[in-house]
């Protein structure tokens, strides 16, 4: 048993589960505080998500919709995770996601590009957007969190301005891809038929999962990943060891930017969402990515499951009783989970200390036994 608790992965898992349980518990208390009569129902609705409906085909449809939005979330989470491994907090993922959305929508609607070209364009624009943060960090010593936030807002207003050219005449939303640019919709390769022919299930989900594995391999098994992590641990040491630390920082944020932007392409190119050109706040996908990355224990594989969980409760907000509560209760729970993730180090430390203490006790017992034996 003790061996199990000594395992780093098990510790991470316990810490993450604890964060989830505590987050849900505090969310439940908030619900009780607002209106005690429906709180249990509401928190169960958040946990159940697609199981809230009883009809099987509707369940599959809702599940598929959640999956369709998990892919972009996973990409944002990977973006944040990748940068964090290099010691950078990429809160600008939200802005890079916006840049990607703007690029792929404009390329498809205004220029009529195909899906792969749109996707590549989104990645390129996102990488460039991330590079700004990286350049400012590497050469001007600007805190990446602050420049990231500034670029989030600049990106939002720029996207609103650019996408106004391809919006529906009577609404603030961009034109549906399936009407104006069907060539830009991601191929589904027949995956939709496993989900009651859901049109939003495309190659996005498997692609995102494959990329998570790729990130895992790049970070842990390649020289490039090793150099990046070394730069993250100690910038100066990396520099003296002959690594190009400035280039590494910029490259990291370019990759992170590309990942987040790809996330946007994976969502908007399924035509699941349209961009609202009057949007006054940055889409929450990039910020929820922080929750997913940390809840996943900063491990790409863990992040896959964490992304699904975060998207699961986010979508489930729609099922709470609107006469008493608002759907933002899900946002509240995910932000609580991020906050609690700050305590993960402490939780792990406590587990380790507990294991060490019990080992010490055992050793003493054994020692006492042998001593007694010696006497007799």
């Amino acid at each position: 048993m003790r061996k199990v608790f000594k395992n780093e992965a098990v510790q991470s898992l316990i810490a993450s589960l604890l964060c989830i349980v505590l987050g849900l518990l505090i969310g439940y208390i908030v619900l009780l505080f607002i209106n005690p009569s429906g709180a249990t129902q509401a928190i169960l609705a958040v946990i159940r998500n697609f199981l809230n409906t009883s009809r099987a085909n509707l369940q599959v449809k809702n599940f598929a919709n959640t999956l369709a939005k998990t892919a972009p979330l996973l990409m944002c989470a990977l973006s944040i995770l990748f940068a964090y491994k290099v010691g950078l907090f990429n809160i600008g993922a939200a802005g890079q996601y916006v840049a990607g959305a703007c690029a792929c929508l404009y390329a498809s609607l205004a220029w009529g590009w195909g899906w792969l070209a749109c996707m590549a364009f989104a990645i390129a624009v996102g990488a460039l957007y991330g590079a700004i943060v990286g350049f400012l960090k590497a050469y001007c010593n600007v805190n990446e969190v602050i420049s990231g936030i500034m670029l989030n807002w600049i990106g939002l207003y720029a996207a609103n301005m650019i996408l106004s050219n391809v919006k529906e005449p009577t609404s603030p939303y961009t034109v549906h891809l399936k009407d104006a640019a069907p060539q830009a919709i991601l191929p589904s390769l027949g995956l939709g038929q496993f989900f009651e022919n859901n049109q939003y299930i495309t190659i996005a989900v498997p692609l995102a999962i494959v990329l998570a594995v790729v990130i895992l391999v790049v970070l842990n098994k390649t020289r490039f990943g090793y150099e990046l992590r070394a730069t993250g641990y100690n910038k100066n040491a990396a520099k003296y060891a002959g690594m190009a630390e400035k280039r590494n920082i910029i490259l990291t944020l370019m990759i992170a930017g590309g990942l987040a932007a790809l996330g946007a392409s994976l969502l908007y190119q399924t035509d699941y969402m349209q961009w609202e050109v009057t949007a006054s706040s940055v889409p929450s996908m990039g910020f929820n990515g922080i929750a997913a990355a940390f809840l996943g224990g900063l491990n790409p594989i863990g992040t896959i499951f964490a992304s699904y969980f975060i998207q699961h409760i986010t979508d489930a907000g729609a099922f709470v009783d609107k006469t008493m509560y608002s759907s933002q209760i899900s946002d509240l729970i995910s932000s609580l989970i991020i906050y609690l993730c700050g305590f993960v180090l402490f939780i792990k430390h406590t587990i380790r200390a507990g294991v060490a203490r019990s080992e010490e006790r055992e050793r003493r017992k054994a020692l006492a036994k042998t001593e007694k034996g010696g006497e007799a």
Partner: protein
Amino acid sequence: MLLLVQYTLIFASVLVLVALGGCFSEHSGVINLGLEGIMVIGALGGALVMRYMTGLVSPAVLVLLVLLGAVGLGTIYSALLGVASIRFRADQTLVGTAMNMLGVAAATVLVKAINTAADPNDVSSTIKYVEAKKAFLINVGGFELNWFMLIAIVALVASAIVLYRTRFGLRLMACGEHPQAADSVGINVHKMRWRGVLISGMLGGLGGICYILAGVSEWKFENGVAGFGFLALAVMIFGQWKPWRIGLAALLFGLFRALSNVYFGFPVLMALNIPGSIYNMLPYIISLLVLAFTSKKSRAPKAEGIPYDKGQR
């Protein structure tokens, strides 16, 4: 023109208050990236007081209560940062970010619940305070003088005195520069950092209520405060963590923020035919440029962002 000055001053007031909040926290050694969330919660505190107390008490008392509400909730909320980053040594960037999201989510959930309880058809996250707002304004010949401008100046002077002329301020700064050295001469580093964080919560909350009272007479809490907490941090960095410079930096940033509110009042600017989005972007672009040119030689408190560990040298 008068309108531009008025808006510049009011936005500068917000920035001064919040940037000073960040300044106290960072001088004690804790990076407060949660200022944005603290502003939202502070604004919520003030707005709730206005919602329930307007008409019940005299305007002067109302002003006082609103300020108390904002400062109180802001301070309590900042304790979340204190607990995590001082007691449990959490990653301050992560906790700050979580607080920003939590602030908006909590305020939205709460305000929506209140609105829906009052009127089942009302599912908005908006609080209106048309009447209450008047208590904060003094009209001087077409120029709306706002109480917050005075408060900001007082806070500025007080901060400069406290930081540089009192035992508390100097000790606080020692904890942000070299906590081990401060500890060795008998200063309780954890206690000092707690004070720094709580003061930033007070000022952040004050800045929050000031922000939502600037220009508009109702607030939709779903929108948060649109990156203003981070603009304040940019002001703080541009001001090199020094109160007087922060004051000047806030005026500059306030001007650009004010332009997006009043640009259509200037025929010259209208003639340029620049889309409104550009004006909206302007404060953020300026702050990026300013940061790019000033961060290189920045004099940030040396130990900021590093949890204090007694065992470390």
